[in-house]
């Protein structure tokens, strides 16, 4: 509930501060007397005695704290013209540019994401020590395209992210020597080099 003594329309700033101190003092005194009554009622709680406050000391502490705060002076504020003019316009433009760039990057990422697909290449090669994938999308280099053997199924597999909308040619290389086609691919052709090549359309 608001104390009528703090009515801003009625008193000056200094008066209001004085009144506030008095009010605080009144509250502290009221609290102390309440604590004293409770302490008398309960002799078995001596710890409460430790928190009994002397109103004059509390006032002195409050004055000391406020004195220090006032001694700090007004906080530094940027000059008023900083919030207007070219600097403000530049800040707004920079923020707008940042938002535009971020949204463009997000759009590009979304398009890129929607135009690619994760493809799982699988080969059943019991007894193989290693299986790698070589394709036109790897420049026919198997480096970095090692298939891992699935412990449950025993199949060799690798997942590759590829762009949709075109066909890819590929082979598996078993034990680093044997170039084989993917038996599960629906399309395979003679590679013109004495072997065959699989093709997948995405």
């Amino acid at each position, binding site marked *: 509930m608001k104390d009528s003594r703090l009515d801003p329309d009625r008193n000056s700033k200094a008066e209001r501060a004085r009144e506030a101190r008095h009010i605080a003092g009144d509250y502290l005194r009221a609290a102390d007397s309440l604590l004293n009554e409770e302490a008398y009622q309960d002799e078995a709680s001596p710890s409460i005695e430790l928190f009994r406050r002397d109103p004059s000391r509390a006032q002195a502490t409050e004055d000391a704290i406020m004195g220090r705060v006032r001694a700090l002076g007004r906080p530094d504020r940027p000059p008023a013209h900083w919030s207007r003019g070219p600097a403000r316009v530049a800040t707004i433009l920079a923020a707008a540019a940042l938002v535009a760039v971020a949204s463009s990057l997000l759009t590009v990422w979304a398009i890129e994401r929607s135009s690619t*697909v994760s493809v799982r290449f699988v080969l059943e090669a019991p007894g193989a020590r290693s299986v790698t994938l*070589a394709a*036109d999308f790897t*420049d*026919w*280099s*198997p480096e970095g395209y090692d298939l891992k053997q699935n412990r449950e199924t025993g199949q060799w597999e690798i997942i590759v992210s590829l762009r*949709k*909308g*075109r*066909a890819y*040619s590929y*082979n598996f290389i078993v034990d680093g020597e044997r*170039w084989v086609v993917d038996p599960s*691919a*629906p*399309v*395979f*052709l*003679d*590679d*013109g*080099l*004495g*072997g065959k090549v699989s*093709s*997948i*359309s*995405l």
Partner: protein
Amino acid sequence: MRTADDCSHGKTTGLALLFLLVGMSSAIAQGPGSSGGSPAGGDMDRLGPSEQRPGLAGEGTLRPSPGDPTVRYGPGWLAKAIKEFDRWLYASVEGRALSAVREGVLAVAVNALRAGVPPDAFKLRLREAVAKKVPPETILKAIEYDASYWIRVSEMIGTDDWPPGDKSPGFYIAAGNALRNGLGELAVRDVIAWARGSRGAPERAEAALTTVASIAIALRADDAQAAVMVRGLAGSRLRVGEFGNVAELAGRAFAAGISASGFSAKLASVLNAGGSLRELERQLFP
């Protein structure tokens, strides 16, 4: 093992040989008594400065074949393409692996480049061949075959700006693979016509050619049937990712005793009408 000096000497010899080859083939192309002009306007004044190199063997002979690369790619393309391929052939891992047949590969490539075949088609094919550890002599033979197919493809494309430069090596390779696997020229011509008419993506054309080449082998389809299938597939509403399913349907059709003509007719009737894969399946296996 070759030292740096050896390589440099080899490169000079290679360049001299290459310009000599270009000179000879150009002279043959012009025929005896030719005044040097070409029907496509391949005169010296159309060539870029890099092609007018004084003091080299075959000076002034880097003229384009009638109606080919300079018309399609602009003046200066041929000399630049040859120079770039020559450099790659000497500097790359693949080129070093092919040292025994390098001059032969270069001669084949120069001839094809003159016909407008993109040098990257050679690079991609040679990478595949070297990665597969194919003997160099076999690679040379294979690349001769490929080049002959690519030259035919280039003739079919003519002076059109389709496929775009950066996509064209993939199309040449796909078309060459399809021709080598028995697909007729009619199918390639038809897919080029489709792409020109609809500004179709070269990647879609490539996928259609590869798929139909495989189907044609399975069903023993003739040129006309294959061409019908390529046109139907490329111009269909199917996604490229569904082309493989069409090949699977062809396999099932073959197992069910459906003939190539039956399959191609059903494919054309369903896909040309904007039908789906499911409709095609229903038509084939009611």
